[in-house]
C-alpha cells in the first residue's frame, strides 16, 4: 500500500488513513513508486507522482472549486457524503483516540482546544479572536502542526492574550471544549477525536461537520458566534465507533 507523501499538500496528508490501513493489516509506505494499491488526493495534489499500482484510490477530502484539476480514471473514495462526487463511495475517517475531558480539580480555567493543521483552512485565527472575546480564565491550545504559526501568534499578541495561547499539538489532548473553526469543508480528524471522546464541540457550520454530527454549529468566519457558543453546552455521549481504525482501513480497501 502506497500513500506517497509528496503527492499530498502538507495540510492534507491523510495520517488517519495510514493508521487505519496499518490497523487493517496493510503494509503502508509513504515513499516509493510501486505498490498493489496507491492512495492519492483526487483534487489539488501537491505533485502528480509516477505511481505504478494495480489499484489507485483517489481520495476526495476537500470540496472542488472552479479550476481544480481532478484525478480521473481512478476509484474514488470521499471522506463524507457532502464531499462525494458521482461514483464515489464514502469512507469516514477514524481516529486513534478521542479527546479526553479536562478534569483538574480546583483549576478555574476553561481549556479550549482548537483543532486542525496550522493552515488557513483550519481558521484558527477565529478561535484566537473568540478566546480574546471571552477574556480572562481561558486557555486556548491550537492543536495542530504546520508552517503557518505567524498569523496565530500575531493575533494572540495583537489581542493581548499571548500568555493564554499555546501553539502545538500534544499527544493526547484534554479539553473542556473543542472548537473546529474551519473555513473549508473537510472531515476534520480533530472533530472526530472530540466526538469520540464526548467532549463538548463547537464547529463551523459546513456540510461535513453537520453530516458528522457536530452538536453545536456556528457560521464560519464568525468569532463572535464562536465565542457565544463556547461553554454554553455540556458533554455529549462518547462515540467510540469513531476510533475503530481497523474497520476504517478495511472499508478503504473494500
Amino acid at each position: 500500500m502506497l500513500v506517497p507523501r509528496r503527492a499530498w499538500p502538507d495540510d492534507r496528508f491523510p495520517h488517519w488513513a495510514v493508521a487505519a490501513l496499518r490497523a487493517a493489516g496493510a503494509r503502508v509506505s509513504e515513499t516509493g513508486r510501486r505498490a498493489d494499491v496507491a492512495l492519492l488526493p483526487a483534487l489539488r495534489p501537491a505533485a502528480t507522482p509516477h505511481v505504478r499500482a494495480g489499484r489507485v484510490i483517489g481520495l476526495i477530502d476537500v470540496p472542488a472549486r472552479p479550476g481544480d484539476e481532478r484525478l480521473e480514471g481512478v476509484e474514488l473514495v470521499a471522506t463524507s457524503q457532502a464531499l462525494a462526487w458521482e461514483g464515489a463511495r464514502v469512507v469516514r475517517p477514524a481516529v486513534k483516540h478521542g479527546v479526553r475531558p479536562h478534569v483538574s480539580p480546583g483549576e478555574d480555567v476553561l481549556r479550549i482546544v482548537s483543532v486542525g493543521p496550522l493552515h488557513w483552512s483550519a481558521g484558527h485565527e477565529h478561535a484566537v479572536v473568540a478566546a480574546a472575546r471571552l477574556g480572562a480564565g481561558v486557555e486556548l491550545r491550537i492543536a495542530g502542526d504546520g508552517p503557518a504559526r505567524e498569523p496565530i501568534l500575531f493575533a494572540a499578541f495583537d489581542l493581548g492574550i499571548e500568555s493564554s495561547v499555546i501553539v502545538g499539538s500534544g499527544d493526547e489532548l484534554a479539553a473542556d471544549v473543542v472548537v473546529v473553526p474551519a473555513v473549508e469543508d473537510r472531515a476534520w480528524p480533530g472533530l472526530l477525536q472530540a466526538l469520540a471522546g464526548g467532549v463538548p464541540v463547537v464547529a463551523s457550520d459546513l456540510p461535513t461537520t453537520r453530516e458528522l454530527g457536530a452538536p453545536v454549529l456556528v457560521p464560519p468566519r464568525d468569532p463572535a458566534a464562536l465565542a457565544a457558543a463556547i461553554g454554553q453546552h455540556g458533554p455529549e455521549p462518547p462515540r467510540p465507533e469513531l476510533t475503530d481504525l481497523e474497520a476504517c482501513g478495511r472499508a478503504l480497501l473494500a
Partner: protein
Amino acid sequence: MRVLLVGGPFPQLSETFIVAHFRGLLARGVDVQFWGSDGDAEAWAAFPGLAEEARGRLHAHAPREHPGRTARDLLSGAVRPRVLAAARGDVARRLAAGSRVARLRPDLIHFEFGVAAREAMWMGDVARCPTVVSFRGYDLNYMGLDQPGYFDDVWRRAAAIHCLGEDLWQRAQRRGCPPDMRHALIPPAVDTARFAPRADRAAGPLAILTVARLHWKKGHIYGLQAVRELVDAGVELEYRIVGTGPHAEAVDAAVHDLGLADHVRLLGAVPHDGVLEEMRAADLLLHPAVSEGFGNAVMEAQAAGLPIVCTDADGLRENIVDGETGFAVPRRDPAAMAAAITRLTDPGLRARMGAAGRRRVAERFQPDRQIDAFVALYEETITARRARAA
C-alpha cells in the same frame, strides 16, 4: 559622510522606497554605499539611470555573514569532518566579508530591516561605526514572537532606530527596546506629482480597489466578508484586488465560498503604472489589513485623490485622518468596513475626502522632508558616537 545601507536584493520592484532612499541620499551629497545582493535584470530595467548612479556603490554580499559566529559554533559543537570542511569555507567567506566592510570605512551603517540587522550587528563592530536600524512593520509586528529576546542584540548594539511611526516605536518598546534608545519617527514618502487624480470618474457600480500582497497580514478575507455584506445590502459594486502572494489559495477559496465570483476581480501582480491606472479608475481604496507597518498603497491612493477605508491596524492610524481623508475601522470587523464603505457611496463625500487626502500627503509625506529627517538622524548619531569616544 559615508553611509552604508544594508538590505536585500538591490534594486527590487517591491521595494521602490529603498531605491528612493538611495537616490535621495546621493542627491544630498551623501556618499552612500549599498550592501546586499544584485537585483535581477527586470528590476534594473524598471529604474532608468540607476545602474549609472549605483556604479561602484553596490557591494553584493548576503548580510548574514558573521565572521566570528561559525568559529564559535565549531568550538562549541560536535564537529564531523564534512561539516568541518564546509564550515572552514564559511569562516573564510565570512572573514572576507568582515574585511570588506571594514575597508569601506563607513561613518554609519543603516540596516533597512530589523530582521536582517539581527544577524548582522557585527558589521558595526568591524567597521567601528554606529549603526541605525529601520523597523518597517512586519519585523516588530510578528517576527519571532515565540522567541523571547528575538531583537535583544539589536537593542544592545544599535546606536539608533528608525520607525515609520509612533505605533511601531511603541511596539519596539513592547518587544524590549529601551525607552531611552535614540530613535526617529520618519514616515514613508510619496511624490504626489506621479499620482494626478482623474477629474471625472465614470458612472456605474461603486469601484472598490485593494492594492496589497495576498498575505495573511493584509486581511483580504475580512475585506471580502465586508463586500459580501454590501452586496447583500443591495450596493452595486465591483471589487478589484491587485496583488499576488502566498495567501492566494485562501483568497480564492473565500471568493468562491462567499459567492462573490461575479463581483470580485483578482488581478494578480500589476506593474506600478498599472496600479496608478487602477487607482484612477477606482472610487475608493479598501485596506483591510490586520497588521501593517504604515501602508504605502494607502498613502499612494491618498495621493491619487482616493478616499480610504482601512483598519486601525498598527501604522494605518497615522497614515490617514479618520473622518477626514477616509475611515479607520476596527481590524477584523467586516461589518464596520461595510458601514464605512456605505457612507462613501455618497460621491460628494468621496470627493471631499479624496481631496483632503491628497492635500495631506502633499504636506506631510514629501520625499524631501523624509531625506532631511534621515540626514539629521545620521548626523546626530555620528556626532553622539564621536562625543562619546572623545
